[in-house]
């Protein structure tokens, strides 16, 4: 059993790793370092209820302060780690402090991808990743008239839904031919596009943004060769894994810190979990996941391995998104070439799309359809084969589908 464990990055994965390490009997010293001035907090509500103002900041925190005290975890918030010296097993922080470790967990998360077009630094252009980002964006909803959303992904559409509730006019610019194209299949994209259109959102698909215009502040979006008036913009064009520490210290990386099935990096004493990693998924594909599930489960497996109880990470990924009164729940990963099976009628606002790969249930996308999601997730874990005509038959309850 190691004596000293250091965790870099104070997010969802860090909070889970601390809980699991102590639950599994690690009784050595534990230190958590995070660059934000906060204890680990939930990010999913940021673009939903926290932005809407219906969920206070206090409620975002994953654990109460007493958790860290009881876990005898030293916390250093608001200070970034600067470097890792693997030969002496020391982490140096930007304020000059050094922390020595026996095992190190990198839970450095991800950051927003910046848009690089003329005018991108004009006041009025926002991103959404942190508490500070939302604290900066929310007040503008009360004073602005026209929100431009750059990127029709989860973040962009969740923000669009909240902005409509605030009464703002909302225009979404999406470079691809459908919304949430990276995350969901076409039937789901089409459904959500219609829901947003019905709520008054205007879409410009296949339309990349060429620039931002304005004198001293944002006044218009330049896209598709035209100017579109707008006094506030939200850019949601994806996130990038934070691998700089791993790169500088010579760990294997490449669009994510590479980890094995125990969440171990190329250095056996350094582990990584969450958005910052790239691993071989259940089907062998080398993937990077951006979700709470991956942060929680990889943190559990990294903690187990550090505590001397390695266990293979094979959990089924799951995701969710809240837009208007709709809950989208997804389990598994969709792939080009999957056989898709629709269950239920999108017009009822309650339906699901199953994805079969070589006959086995590989993914499910469920809109306001918890049974489809929950049973689907279980079937995916089991690699179960279910006939498409059974999945499509809503007369057969999900409980009896397999």
């Amino acid at each position: 059993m190691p004596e000293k464990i250091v965790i870099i990055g104070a997010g969802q994965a860090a909070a889970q790793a601390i809980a699991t390490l102590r639950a599994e009997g690690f009784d050595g010293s534990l230190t958590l370092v995070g660059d934000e001035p906060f204890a680990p907090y939930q990010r999913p509500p940021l673009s939903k209820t926290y932005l809407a103002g219906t969920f206070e900041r206090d409620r975002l925190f994953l654990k109460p302060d007493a958790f860290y005290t009881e876990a005898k975890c030293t916390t250093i918030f608001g200070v970034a780690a600067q470097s890792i010296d693997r030969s002496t097993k020391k982490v140096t922080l930007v304020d000059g402090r050094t922390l020595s470790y026996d095992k190190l967990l990198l839970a450095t998360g991800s950051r927003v991808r910046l848009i690089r077009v003329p005018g991108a630094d004009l006041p009025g252009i926002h991103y959404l990743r942190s508490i500070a980002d939302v604290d900066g964006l929310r007040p503008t909803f009360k004073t602005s008239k026209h929100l431009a959303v750059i990127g029709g992904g989860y973040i962009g559409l969740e923000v669009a839904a909240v902005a409509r509730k605030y009464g703002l006019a909302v225009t979404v610019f999406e470079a691809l031919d459908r919304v949430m194209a990276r995350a969901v299949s076409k039937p789901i994209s089409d459904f959500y596009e219609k829901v947003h259109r019905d709520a008054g959102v205007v879409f410009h698909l296949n339309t990349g943004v060429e620039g931002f215009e304005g004198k001293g502040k944002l006044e218009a979006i330049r896209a598709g060769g035209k100017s579109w008036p707008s006094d506030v913009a939200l850019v949601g064009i994806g996130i990038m894994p934070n691998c700089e520490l791993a790169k500088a210290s010579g760990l294997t990386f490449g669009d994510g810190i590479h980890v094995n099935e125990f969440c171990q990096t190329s250095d056996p004493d350094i582990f990584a979990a969450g958005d910052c990693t790239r691993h071989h998924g259940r089907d062998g594909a080398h993937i990077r996941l951006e979700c709470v599930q991956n942060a929680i489960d990889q943190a559990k497996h990294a903690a187990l391995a550090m505590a001397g109880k390695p266990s293979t990470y094979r959990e089924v990924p799951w995701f969710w998104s809240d837009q208007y009164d709709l809950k989208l729940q997804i389990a598994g990963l969709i792939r080009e070439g999957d056989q898709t099976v629709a269950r239920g009628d999108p017009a009822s606002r309650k339906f699901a799309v199953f994805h079969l790969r070589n006959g086995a249930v590989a993914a499910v996308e469920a809109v306001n359809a918890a049974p489809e999601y929950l049973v689907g997730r279980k079937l995916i874990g089991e690699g179960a084969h279910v006939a498409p005509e059974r999945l499509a038959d809503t007369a057969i309850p999900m409980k009896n589908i397999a």
Partner: protein
Amino acid sequence: MPKIKYIEHTGKEHEVEVPNGWSVMEGAVKNLIPGIDADCGGACACATCHVYVDPAWLEKMPPKADMEETMLDFAQDLESNSRLSCQIKVSPELDGLVVKMPKSQH
């Protein structure tokens, strides 16, 4: 502030104050009461915050929305007094509420 009593599967009791408007799930998590995982943080997306409401309190419970009803259908060891604690909003009427946790959330 309303008081809520959480009883672990082992019988261990915890009585804590939970702010009005918070969920019963948050009351447990923020007070380090074991037995409720709440992986999704209260979005009614994971069904890992299952509790049994003391029968004396069932009448005062806010009704279940469709989503909770269907998520619960798939919880382990479902009983007629099962609820997802992330969907029970704490209010003055629930002062004194008693909930029990199941053996496992997974």
